[in-house]
């Protein structure tokens, strides 16, 4: 029997109470798509907020129907007896602002014009995504999160929460993340955006109701996917094997398995993701820079009240272990409670979606000690 979950929706920010964004612009009303797993306890002290990465959504665990082919994106970690144990904790996951999986984003209808926002959607930041999550948590009547967790861009949201809402975050788990993306990371995002904007179908973002820039978005996804893997994992998974061929085709069709894999990743992505959302979200990732905003990591973390856990992966070259270590040292220098684990894995950045056992062992034990040490 599959555990079924239904996506729920919360709306706020009706004029004149719009959300003020980091850029100074206002946005409203805003719809937030979210899912919950497990039960909220009587004193509302067992909530764990899950923050998803670039292409994720509110569907973190369980199934939408008996016929569903796949469970939520982090079902290996969330459920009865799992790291985020739904018998103990009340788990919440919401789609980010700017996304295209139910929460307001560039593909949503602007109530003023009755047309999709497209590029009239304001440029948003990680802090804006966090403020939308905060509104949802307030609406659910939760004053303090037992914990929160996020991998990759989700980790950036966790960092932002812990800095800006210190008393609301009892413990924070940051997985394969960074306080600021490297030049290399920005470069890959820029190429992805260029691929989308160079697609003639993009038409300055006004493609809704017409042909979407599927080719550009697929290329962006292919590039992204390369950065999520490692040289070793690609070698292990594909090597130089040919795709349904015994020898080279001596043409420009697909020869290698890796080509076929990337093409498949690109093609399936365009069916579920909005190209403009990809532009907005990667921009928010590029803009995230804790040092720039607060002067230094030490200054940024000086008022945090959370017990922290940082996990990084040895083969992750997109969000390398060194970037997690910097944050951990800054927290240690600030006398904060913080633990750092570096897991050996060949999977690269994607490891956080795949490495179930070690991640579970670390996180389940960490969560078990949160209550007594931060009471």
């Amino acid at each position, binding site marked *: 029997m599959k555990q079924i979950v239904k996506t729920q929706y919360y709306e706020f920010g009706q004029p004149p109470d719009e959300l003020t964004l980091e850029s100074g612009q206002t946005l409203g009303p805003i719809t937030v798509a979210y899912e919950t797993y497990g039960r909220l306890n009587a004193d509302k002290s067992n909530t764990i907020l899950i923050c998803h990465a670039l292409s994720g959504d509110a569907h973190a665990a369980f199934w939408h129907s008996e016929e569903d082919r796949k469970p939520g994106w982090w079902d290996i970690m969330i459920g009865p007896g799992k790291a985020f144990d739904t018998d103990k904790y009340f788990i919440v996951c919401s789609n980010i602002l700017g996304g295209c999986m139910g929460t307001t984003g560039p593909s949503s209808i602007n109530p003023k014009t009755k047309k999709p926002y497209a590029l009239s959607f304001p440029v948003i930041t990680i802090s804006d995504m966090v403020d939308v999550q905060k509104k949802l948590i307030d609406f659910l009547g939760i004053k303090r999160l037992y914990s929160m967790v996020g991998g990759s861009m989700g980790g950036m949201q966790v960092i932002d929460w812990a800095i800006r809402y210190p008393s609301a975050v009892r413990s924070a788990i940051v997985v394969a993340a960074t306080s600021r993306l490297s030049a290399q990371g920005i470069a890959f995002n820029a190429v992805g955006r260029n691929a989308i904007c160079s697609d003639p179908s993009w038409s300055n973002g006004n493609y809704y109701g017409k042909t979407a820039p599927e080719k550009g978005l697929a290329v962006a996804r292919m590039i992204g996917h390369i950065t999520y893997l490692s040289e070793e994992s690609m070698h292990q998974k594909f090597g130089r094997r040919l795709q349904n061929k015994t020898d080279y085709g001596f043409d420009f069709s697909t020869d290698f398995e890796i080509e076929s894999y990337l093409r498949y990743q690109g093609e399936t992505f365009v069916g579920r993701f909005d190209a403009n959302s990809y532009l907005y979200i990667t921009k928010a990732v590029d803009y995230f820079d804790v040092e720039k905003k607060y002067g230094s990591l030490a200054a940024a973390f000086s008022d945090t009240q959370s017990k922290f*856990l940082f996990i990084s992966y040895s083969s992750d070259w997109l969000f390398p272990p060194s970037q997690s*270590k*910097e944050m*951990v*040292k*800054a927290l*240690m*220098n600030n*006398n*904060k*409670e*913080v*633990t*750092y*684990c*570096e*897991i050996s894995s060949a999977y690269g950045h994607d490891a956080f979606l795949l490495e179930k056992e*070690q991640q579970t*062992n*670390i996180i389940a*034990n*960490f969560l*078990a*000690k949160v209550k*007594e*040490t931060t009471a």
Partner: protein
Amino acid sequence: MINTIRSSLFDYIADLVESKAKVLDLGCGKGELLETLIREKNVVGHGIDINEENIIECIKKGISVFQGNIDEGLLEYRDKSYDYVILSQTLQVVHKPLFVINEMLRVGKKGIICFPNFGYWKIRLQLFFKGQMPRTKRIPYEWYNTPNIHHVTIKDFKHTCKKYGIRIVKEIPLSGSQKRRNILYAACSNLLAEDALFLIES
């Protein structure tokens, strides 16, 4: 029995640490020493260890721990940002002991070091009479599988401190492998002490 030895050593270390101090334990293992110091001295304690199983054990105790290699130094830890940096039963396993000691005293206001004393008479006798690498309860390894790659005596350690301008604030030779260790007469310590405990500063 190992546990009683350890816990009595922990008592001596705890005696050197002021309450509510900020402590960094290098090679903290399963976090037992930090747990003792947090419980008895109310310290703010952080550990560093390289071993994954040890990290999990620390997490189970709720102790803050950093998974890393202390031979790479204490990069990004600020000067004098800890009251005490502790190197307990770890000096003999690091690749660059002098570098690690210097890093300890850069980051810590004081350093606490304890190590098994290779000048202990039983060890000397074994080497002298058997002509083989000594094995004791404290150092139970074969030459080829020992993690102890830098054997050191109390005399060696004191010479090194003198040579590099490291001040020894307190020297506590320890022996008596049964229950509690007696503080030995310092003059014979290099011969009689099984372990040595030092409080140092730069």
